């Protein structure tokens, strides 16, 4: 696809094109090349990259209690006690002497992991249910439609609070599985609506006439056309899943010995970090989460441009 776009711009259809115009033009030709998508993906990949490389370059054992002096500020700052930041802990330490850099390196990918895994599972469920509803119709459709209407109004946080309060400590994967049970509704609705409208579309009718199987029509003919929508719904669900996971963690219901951004914030609030002006303790994970959400928003806006050409502006 990218090659094709490049070739398009090399066509000698206007010698007066400037570089900027070529770039804009290329963007118009290929919707996947838009700056929002680019920046959004860049931010998220950056976080993943720092998480992966950080594990190699930085000592992950520093996330444990007592790894360093307590409450050290980031490099270049001073805490209330007049201690300056040190190179060994460039982003400072928390109230139990855990290294903030290590916490972020381990914690941020953990938060993303929960979001992506929950959303992937929810998406798979949604694809199966959505296609079933749209394609099979009848009773199946009714049941799935009503169920997704119902489930979409139940805030996942509150059911999960009940769950985790009853079951106690859970690990990250378990938490992702639980959240997945609440993020299948919107892809289901979306796919169902699209399948209903596409069922009558020319190429699907063609496939049907040529005797293709239902499975073939669903996954070979229709699914590729749904990709931008699915992707948008996937990203929206990653956001919902992370918000829910962070919510549980801030209520003290997340995994206990596994560092996550939400749990770091929880511990900071509980230890009086706000009043003690230990801004790096709660502020860094907050900023990282905010960055993550902004990245996801940008991707979503970018995807909107892909699936809705009217939003693109030359």
């Amino acid at each position, binding site marked *: 696809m990218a090659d094709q776009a490049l070739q398009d711009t090399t066509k000698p259809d206007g010698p007066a094109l400037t570089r900027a115009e070529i770039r804009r033009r290329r963007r118009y030709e290929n919707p996947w090349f838009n700056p929002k998508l680019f920046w959004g993906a860049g931010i998220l990949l950056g976080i993943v990259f720092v998480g992966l490389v950080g594990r190699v370059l930085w000592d992950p054992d520093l996330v444990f*209690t007592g790894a360093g002096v*307590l409450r050290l500020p980031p490099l270049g700052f001073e805490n*209330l*006690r007049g201690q300056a930041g040190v190179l060994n802990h460039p982003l400072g330490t928390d109230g139990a002497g855990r290294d903030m850099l290590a916490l972020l390196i381990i914690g941020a990918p953990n938060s993303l992991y929960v979001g992506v895994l929950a959303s992937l599972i929810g998406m798979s469920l949604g694809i199966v249910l959505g296609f079933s509803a749209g394609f099979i119709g009848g009773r199946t459709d009714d049941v799935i439609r009503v169920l997704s209407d119902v489930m979409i109004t139940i805030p996942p946080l509150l059911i999960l609070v009940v769950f985790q309060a009853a079951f106690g400590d859970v690990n990250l994967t378990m938490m992702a599985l639980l959240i997945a049970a609440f993020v299948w509704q919107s892809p289901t609705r979306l796919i169902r609506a699209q399948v209903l409208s596409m069922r009558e579309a020319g190429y699907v009718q063609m496939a049907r006439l040529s005797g293709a199987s239902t499975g073939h029509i669903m996954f070979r003919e229709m699914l590729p056309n749904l990709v931008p929508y699915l992707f948008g719904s996937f990203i929206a669900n990653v956001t919902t899943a992370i918000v829910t996971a962070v919510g549980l963690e801030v209520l003290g219901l997340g995994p206990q010995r596994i560092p996550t951004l939400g749990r770091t914030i929880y*511990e900071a609030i*509980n230890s*009086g970090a706000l009043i003690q002006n230990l801004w790096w303790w709660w502020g860094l994970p907050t900023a990282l989460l905010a960055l993550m959400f902004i990245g996801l928003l940008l991707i979503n806006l970018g995807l909107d441009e892909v699936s809705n050409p009217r939003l693109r502006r030359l």
Partner: protein
Amino acid sequence: MKHSTALLVTTALVGVVAAGSASAQNRADTVIFDLDRTISDPENFNWFTAGTKREHGAHQAMWEPLFILNYTTGELEPWLGTAFEPNGDFSEWTLSIRDGVEWSDGEAFNADDVVFTVNMVLENEQLSEREAATLRAQVAAAEKVDDLTVRFTLNEPNPRFAVENFGVRIFGSFLIMPQHIWEGEDPATFAFYPPIGTGPYTFASSATNRAIWDRNDDWWGAQTGFMDLPEPERLVWLETGGEESRAQLIAANEIDAAQNVSVGTLEAILQRNPAVIAWHGDYPYAWPDPCARQLEINTTVAPWDDPNMRRAVAHIIDRNQIVNVAYEGTTVPSQTMFAQYGSMAPFIDAITEAGFALSPEGDVEAGQALIEAAGWVMGDDGIYERDGQDLTVAIHVNSASTEYTRTIDVLVEQFNRAGIAARSVPVENGVFWGEVLPFGAYEMSYSWLSCGSVNEPWTSMNRYTTDSVVPVGERSPGFNNTARWDDASAEAYTEIVHRMRDLAPDDPALPGLVAEAYQHLDAGVPFIPLVQAAKLLPFNTTYWTGWPTAENAYNSPAFWWNHTHQIIHSLERAQ
């Protein structure tokens, strides 16, 4: 248009900010204390039953104790009582009551009230609070000798009877109730509302988050010359909820005494409000409360039923790291099971001389040698294994405070590094005290159950005798020996502690017996002393001075205790 909008927003903001700063006009005549719990039943003052019925001002301002233990001198100071004399073998005690004491409704406080209250507790098993239960277990009969004299006959000789029951040794004391009000009521359900007492303050109002007490200018104490009227006209106990909230309130001079904060929070408060002080003017700031911290081990659960495994754990623990990380240097490592007060020094010294004092540093190799001797082999993952099973331990910890959870976090790291797969199990306060500890439903847990001794050794040591051993699943009486330690060393220990029971606190034979008993405790390791406790209580000198401090140590600063009467009488208006 832009200007007017900006103006409007500013006005609204200023209005909002100003609205909140309106305060009571008589703030300078009021002392506001921090309360760290909700008053679930604000119209019930039956202190014999559980709930927040004393520490919201009732036993600091309204109900007075008979005596008050001075933490600095170890002496019992008279208050409503003037003397408490034992007979030769400590089996009979005679109480003399101060002349001229009156209830706030004008009735005289005398021997009838004392005898009535004691008999009420003796006859009613439902009166469950610790002070009531302790008295019921010890006293056979109380009889009035004359209006100001009461004689107690005990079930068994007890040289500590006065301080244990009537001296505010820790938190409370047995409080005398007015006979003319309680008579004829069912003591288990009587709400005693509105309450009266003998103190210089009377009950004004209460809600779930506050209790207010106003000075009674006709107080008997001022009229008889016992003491001057205290200066504060009104006392308020206020639930502030959480460390950040109390820090902000004391920094803004909205409260005068705050509950425990972390050292970081105190530093933040000091930066904003230099008028705030603590027990020490500088590091470590904190006052050591009498309940030293320890790791309790359930001696019935394998592999920790092996004393060598328990001793291995004791070797691994690095107390200095606990002090530095969990307490930020506000306390010191424990040398023995006792609180390190001056009055306890002879006993601590005896143990040290006998060679049983604890090291502030860990000795991981010695610990690992013991574990390996028990047949465990270090696995590839750095965790010991035996018969294909990892060496694991779950440590139960009360989740109510970060002090507790962080101490256990430190231990968990130390254990994991030494090859024991430890994990922390935080449980809620009620579950911890209601289910985990008393029923022995744990492997190890963080507690302070050897707490009790302040000026003599027996009270703490008596908590680990075999008398208190019950099977797992049954409630340990009075949280004593929840470790369920009952092997041969425990038998030997118990025998010596029994001999200590009948000796007066200043008996010269006592230190030797302590060292002798401690040798068995050291062999059995039913618990491992960790560090001394630390309470960091900020006091505000903006409106009131005369708070207890290390330099002015007229008594402990624990203003939720019954001895707070002394603090209130010592307060003076700041100039």
